[in-house]
């Protein structure tokens, strides 16, 4: 079987590079048109990861940096599936997340927000999807935090999510938001996405079925990567 191409990215669904209300995008967005290329082996292949690359505790942000006890905050499970646009699961793919602590502070040299660092919270995790594309993390719900854009901008609570998929052309970084957060609609980073339906795709609903009684609430976040042509007909990358 010859490798098949991935569907083209819907550039009207994705945020444009230049989103003037998100000020940093102004000097950092290309002005020239992207060069659209037909995919070759360089685009339909991508890095492969294995369980040897990570440790089992890496997906547990409540324990993976705990020093003197558990981190402060609302305990949550974040779970879902990585699927492609055809609805097929993406198995054995690396999912990495990072986030602020419950007070909205990042464990990062460059974060100077006055909310305190939590000595028991690192703020990052990673895992591999299983054979059916399922993944889960345990963490605490991140706090909202202020950022310099307009004078009084606040990021809605969010978790940054990085996913690989099966090819380098599926590589994606996004952010997961939480159902019901009034800051979502006010955020210039969120609203860089033009289609309100697309924004909804980033909002994880509360999932009481996955909550653990007397322990943790849960949010469900499915991630969709670019789909791929069927190989039933001629879609060959190579040939005559």
């Amino acid at each position: 079987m010859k490798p098949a191409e991935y569907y083209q990215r819907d550039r009207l669904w994705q945020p444009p590079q230049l989103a003037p209300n998100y000020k940093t995008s102004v000097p950092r967005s290309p002005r020239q048109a992207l060069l659209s290329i037909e995919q070759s082996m360089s685009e339909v292949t991508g890095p492969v990861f294995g369980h040897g690359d990570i440790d089992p505790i890496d997906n547990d942000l409540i324990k993976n940096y705990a020093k003197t006890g558990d981190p402060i905050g609302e305990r949550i499970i974040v779970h879902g599936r990585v699927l492609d646009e055809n609805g097929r699961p993406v198995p054995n793919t690396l999912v990495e997340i990072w986030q602020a602590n419950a007070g909205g502070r990042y464990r990062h040299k460059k974060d100077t927000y006055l909310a305190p660092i939590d000595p028991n919270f690192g703020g990052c995790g990673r895992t591999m999807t299983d054979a059916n594309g399922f993944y889960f993390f345990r963490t605490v719900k991140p706090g909202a935090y202020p950022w310099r854009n307009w004078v009084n901008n606040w990021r809605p609570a969010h978790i940054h999510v990085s996913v690989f998929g099966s090819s380098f052309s599926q590589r994606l970084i996004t952010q997961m938001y939480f159902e019901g957060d009034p800051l979502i609609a006010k955020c210039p980073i969120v609203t860089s996405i033009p289609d309100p339906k697309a924004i909804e795709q980033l909002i994880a609903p509360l999932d009481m079925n996955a909550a653990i009684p007397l322990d943790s609430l849960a949010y469900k976040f499915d991630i969709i990567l670019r789909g791929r042509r069927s190989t039933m007909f001629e879609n060959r990358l190579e040939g005559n």
Partner: protein
Amino acid sequence: MPQKLDYRKETPSQTAGPYVHIGLAPGAAGFDIYGNELGRDIAGPHAPGERIRVEGLVYDGTGAPVKDVLIEVWQADANGIYPHPEDPRYGKVARGFRGWGRVITEFDTGLWGFETIKPGSVMGRNGRLQAPHLNLWIVARGINLGLNTRLYFADEEQANAADPVLNLIEQQHRRATLVASREMRDGKPVYRFDIRLQGENETVFLDV
């Protein structure tokens, strides 16, 4: 009414933000958490081929270096084989060759760099060879959707002249934005590749 197509939509991208290091390179954020930070060794110790260093700066539209960028690299081995099961020659990929790397800038200067081996030519479409190249993916605060580009090598003049992607760039002078210059430093080859996000000599970015 026709039947409905039932495709799902790709999850929209959001910027990696200023704290991308926490998730993808926590050591650089200032803490030690993982037993193994991924993406630090692209080629491994045994892969044959020319050992090279690649470095550069990413500039914004005002000409200032971007100091919080993260770049990922995906490349073939010296024989042009990708370490991925769909490469038809996958079984012959160099031992221990990962092909993927992740690099961040020095916070003070914005300089980034990594060691690898120079890749071989890679099969393109319709049996047409592509010049040796590295596939790069760039994310940072202010970048809403990761930017794809390619790095080609200045000493591959002939192969570059025939490369199907370089030839697709309509304005010929812009092709040079994808070609890294080569110099020798302490007897070792170093390729310089500056990326300009915007403005004069803006790098050609790819919609893959």
